[in-house]
């Protein structure tokens, strides 16, 4: 990429991320409430994946050779669904049904109902094992698709992640790429107070993974790190993305109460104005 085209790409991705943040808020307004904080913290990562990195075909969502994405922190459905809509998997007007009776879209994604969703998640600690299965299936079937899995940092409390971390290294799954949304908050408070996960990078390294830490809102750092997967041949790779829960909305940033929050018209009006002025 030339310097100029890189700048254009980054500008496009930042613009897209802003549009998705706006869509997250209007989707949550339609729903009345939702996972504001943990959805906004992953928007830049989702944007980089779906608009720059992943090989997907919105017209053929089940394309067997597509890259896979597992939203292990399923409660960020309010970010994933707008991302998929923006990417063209379905009309974004459908998001107005979010959480309504019989809607395909709700708090946690359902792969049988949402075009482009590769898994059904919601209970934490399930995504990494599933993603490992996808990565091993790729290797066995000699397919080149890559499997990305986005984990929460609070989710690191769940033991099943570490079962899968151990197994991924054992099976040398260097086509498995994890990203931890390190927003430092969980339902009841700061992760350091509820259940310390540090030293997180050392834990992953000790389990046999290649690790990089980045600013999870720096679009250049995100695409550079993801483009560098695998960080080491023969090892699974993980990015620890330091993020801000509620990123983009000053009233929600780093607030314990914004894990799940009511969303009204006033809040969305303010959000859209803030996001508009951040251009």
């Amino acid at each position, binding site marked *: 990429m030339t310097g100029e085209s890189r700048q254009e790409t980054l500008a496009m991705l930042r613009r897209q991320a802003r549009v998705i943040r706006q869509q997250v808020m209007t989707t949550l307004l339609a729903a009345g409430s939702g996972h504001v904080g943990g959805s906004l913290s992953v928007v830049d990562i989702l944007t980089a994946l779906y608009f720059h990195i992943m090989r997907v075909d919105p017209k053929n969502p089940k394309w*067997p050779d597509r890259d896979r994405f597992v939203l292990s922190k399923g409660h960020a459905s309010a970010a994933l669904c707008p991302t998929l809509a923006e990417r063209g998997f379905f009309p974004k007007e459908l998001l107005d049904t979010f959480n309504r009776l019989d809607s395909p879209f709700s708090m946690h994604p359902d792969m049988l109902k949402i075009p482009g969703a590769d898994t059904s998640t919601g*209970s934490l600690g*399930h995504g990494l*094992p*599933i993603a*490992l299965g996808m990565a*091993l299936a790729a290797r*066995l079937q000699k397919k080149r698709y890559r499997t990305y899995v986005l984990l929460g940092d609070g989710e690191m409390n769940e033991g099943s992640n570490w079962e899968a971390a*151990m197994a991924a290294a054992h099976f040398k799954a260097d086509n498995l790429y994890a990203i931890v949304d390190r927003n430092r908050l969980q339902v009841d408070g700061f992760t350091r107070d509820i259940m310390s996960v540090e030293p997180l990078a050392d834990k992953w390294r000790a389990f046999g993974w290649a690790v990089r830490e980045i600013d999870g809102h720096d679009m250049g750092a995100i695409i550079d790190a993801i483009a560098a997967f695998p960080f080491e041949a023969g090892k699974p790779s993980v990015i620890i993305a330091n993020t801000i829960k509620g990123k983009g909305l000053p009233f929600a940033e780093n607030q314990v109460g914004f894990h799940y929050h009511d969303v009204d018209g006033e809040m969305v009006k303010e959000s859209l104005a803030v996001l508009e002025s951040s251009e």
Partner: protein
Amino acid sequence: MAVSTIGTPFDPSTCQREPTRLAFGRAVVDLGERDPKVVFLTADGALPTGTAEFFKRFPERAFNVGIAEQNLIGIAAGMATCGLKPIVGGYAPFLAFRAFEQVRNDIAYTKQSVTIGGVYSGISLATGGSTHHTTEDIASFRAVANVTVISPADAREAYKATIASVGHPGCVFLRLGGRTPEPVLYTEDYDFQIGKAIQIRDGKDATIIATGPTVVYAAIASDLLREEGLSVRVLNMHTVKPLDEEAIERAARETGRILTVEEHNVLGGLGGAVAETVTSRHPVPVKRVGIQDIFASIGPLQGLQEKYGLTHEGIATAVKELVST
């Protein structure tokens, strides 16, 4: 319902025996031979599931994830979404309970086709104690949509059920036995279909509906009772879900009394399932033999079977009580 009259009278002392868990292992190898999409996964359970041969023959399609059942089921689910046909084998209690949520969310909810063979089910690991008994799995899985629950009566049925499970929509949970080789009831050519009960004895005074390793004892009990002048039908209800409700309704109508027998808690298992069907379709008295909502004791398998009325003597006694009421 199919009819297959197994050896009459059935004599367990002279019959061929094979553990159902090893028949599962044979089927897994044969499936691997037939279909390159078949993969086998275990959590440190290749030896007890009789699948070491699969690891030898198809090493690239065999995965031992160590002692980590949640990860095991998650990996299998992920593979299924990518077009593979995963068969999982391991210890029944840990697959059913430790990994229950993974089975529910990652396989059943998402409608993936995955076979799970749980060995040492029921009280078959008799001296293992309740941590190693599996007496709540039928009730648990029966309450989950898109899960099929099969409890084979013998090695032939375990083999055929394993073959039939691959490609069957949703999760198929196979309840397999332990170290003691179970009597082989069936001849090679008998017809096994998921969800179709097999009548192995006809009768008009009562029906014993049994599943898994209790089926052979039910047949022997029927033979003993016949000598005493009682005519007792026996149904092998190998598939507890989906249940063969027609066969149960017919038994209720034609014999008027039903006894259920299972190596499982009587709450929510075969007994519960049959009672639900009988009360809604043709109410008749139902008596349930099994583990009476306790954690089973420990001891030699036969001692436990006798203690909980799961042998032919216990079953015959229960039938006599039932018909005298």
